[in-house]
């Protein structure tokens, strides 16, 4: 199954690079900060809810 999904890897990477080039510096870090907040919230939820 993994082999069948491998073609998605370069597609995902290409999309990511395009996204990186398009996003200005400041919104990028803002997004990264909120992504970290999201991760923290999910961890907190997992820790509380088990």
């Amino acid at each position, binding site marked *: 199954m*993994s082999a069948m*999904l491998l073609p998605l890897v370069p597609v995902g990477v290409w999309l*990511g690079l395009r996204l*990186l080039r398009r996003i200005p*510096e400041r919104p990028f870090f803002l997004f*990264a900060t909120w992504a970290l907040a999201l991760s923290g919230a999910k*961890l907190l939820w997992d*820790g509380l809810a088990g």
Partner: protein
Amino acid sequence: MSGQNIQRSILCGLIGSGIQASRTPAMHEQEGEAQGLRYVYKNDRHRPLGLGRDLPELLDRCPAHGLLGTQHHLPFKQQIIPLLDELSDDARALNAVNTVVLRDGKPDRLQHRLQRLGRGLPPRPARRRTQARGTARRRGAGAAVAHAALSQKVGTLHIRDAEPARAVELAASLCERFGAGRALACEDLAAAMKQADGLIHCTPTGMEKLPGLPLPAELIEGRHWISEIVLLPARDRAVARGSAEGLPHARRGRHGGVPGGGCLPPLHRPRARLRAHAAPLRVDVIVVAAATVQGNNMYKHILMPMDGSDLSTKSFREGVELAKAIGARVTAVSVVIASHAPRGSGTSMLGKHVLEDAAEEYLKGVAAIASEAGVDVETFYVVGDSPHEEIVAAAEGARLRPHLHGLARPLLAGRVVPRQRGGLGDHRLPHPGADRPLTGSGRAGRNDEMDALGWAVTAIAILLTGISKAGLGGALGGLAVPFMSMWIPPRDAVAVVLPILIVMDMVGIRVWRGKADRGDLLHLVPAALLGIGAGTLLFGVLSDRMVKLVLGLIALAFVADRLLRRRAEAAASGERPRARSFAWLCGAGAGFTSTLAHAGGPPIMAYVLSRGLPKERFVATSVFFFTAINLAKLPFYLGPSACSAATPC
């Protein structure tokens, strides 16, 4: 108006729950008509009673409505008893009441009132005085019918019950009242049916809500007399079977209201008439198939926690038998406790997965047992520190699941339950610690193939991961497996994603070669290796729940701090000097939490965000770091439990 033209009128009440479809009123009214009585059953179909709370009030209202008596159905056959002044011997013996006669105090008052009614006089207001003449369910209708049958033409009664102990108890009770040897608990149904002249079927099997036969159809022969208390549908399978065998006597009996006094006094004669159905048959032996468990049918889904021991396997077999008898489905759950994994020499993490595999194997065997018995079964194991909490959660999940569909199921139920159906063959239960509780992993194990939804979710997760790794420095990369785990089990998610992540890391290195911050990596990667080592040693000692809780709090605190300082940082934007101690702390923390809780992202994100690197260097440094620690963890993934190991960061 002459006296002959005046029909005697009797108004009776039918009290019960779910009685709207009952044919008792029609039967009694027809019999009353045959006797020249205007016999009316009043069914309170618009106001269901609430567990007997309204029963006293309802009885008090009866006289005002001109009711001379009431007939009681479940669940009021016992609840009425404390409200009665007198009980008949039958009712006392059965601890259940079918018919209540309302009197104004004197034993013969009812007849008097009936005479008054017959003369067209209004009934006097009657105070609630009662005499129970009816019978019914102490242990189901079978008990009442058994008493009734023995009090009439039946020589010997063989009693069959889904619970053998109950049949023995009832037989003993009957022998005490009717004489030794009159009732026997039936152990061999086939042999009893060969001896029997007839069959009285007292379970609701055959009714619309519970189709089928209470016994193998081949046991019913043409010579058998069959009677049953099944009310709906009008012609059920047992009677149909009897007719198919050329049985002339296959008919629907009304044993619930026959002997023992299911009718009001003026209707004694119809009881005799009903008894006459049996009289010419000279029934010597009757098998009563009394299975109130079947009748109750309250166990539709049985959850059976399993610990891998022989005793739990034995219990499971019993549970499967019960489920088969009552048409229920079964869910077997095992709780895998990480702290029970063998420790030492860095094997604790693998030990946990060994136990997971053992649990999975054990549940395969359990599923095979149920499948072979033809019982619908699903099995899963859960990881947790507290088995009783996990079992309760599993029970709640089991309640939720039937009502959840599609995408809502994993989101609301929180667990994906693997279904194991048949064909598993191996009934051995290879759990290594027979008397030790199983321990385990992931939310759930799954053994069937991934469906279309799983493929779609996995594809989306991979795309998101690629975008995140290449464009966002892995900011969302850590969400791929949790995202997939909402639809497919983590073990499957890891097994599928792991090779792809490795390829993705290689692609990322190729793309970002030479752009990462070497100085940061020189601190972060060695620290992460130490963190991985510490995490491996402490695996099973620290609760992953606690680790996640602390890490989540730290991540949120970091975000809050960063957002609060953002203005100040904006004024002094640009790359900030490297803080070695912070780099080592975050690197070690990432390795540690990645090993223990599959959550290495937040610490490293916190570090690179604090550095104020340009976005390209931010992404490149993150990609190189995650590639390094994923490679460091690769031996664990490729070990005996390979893809069941921890999620990459």
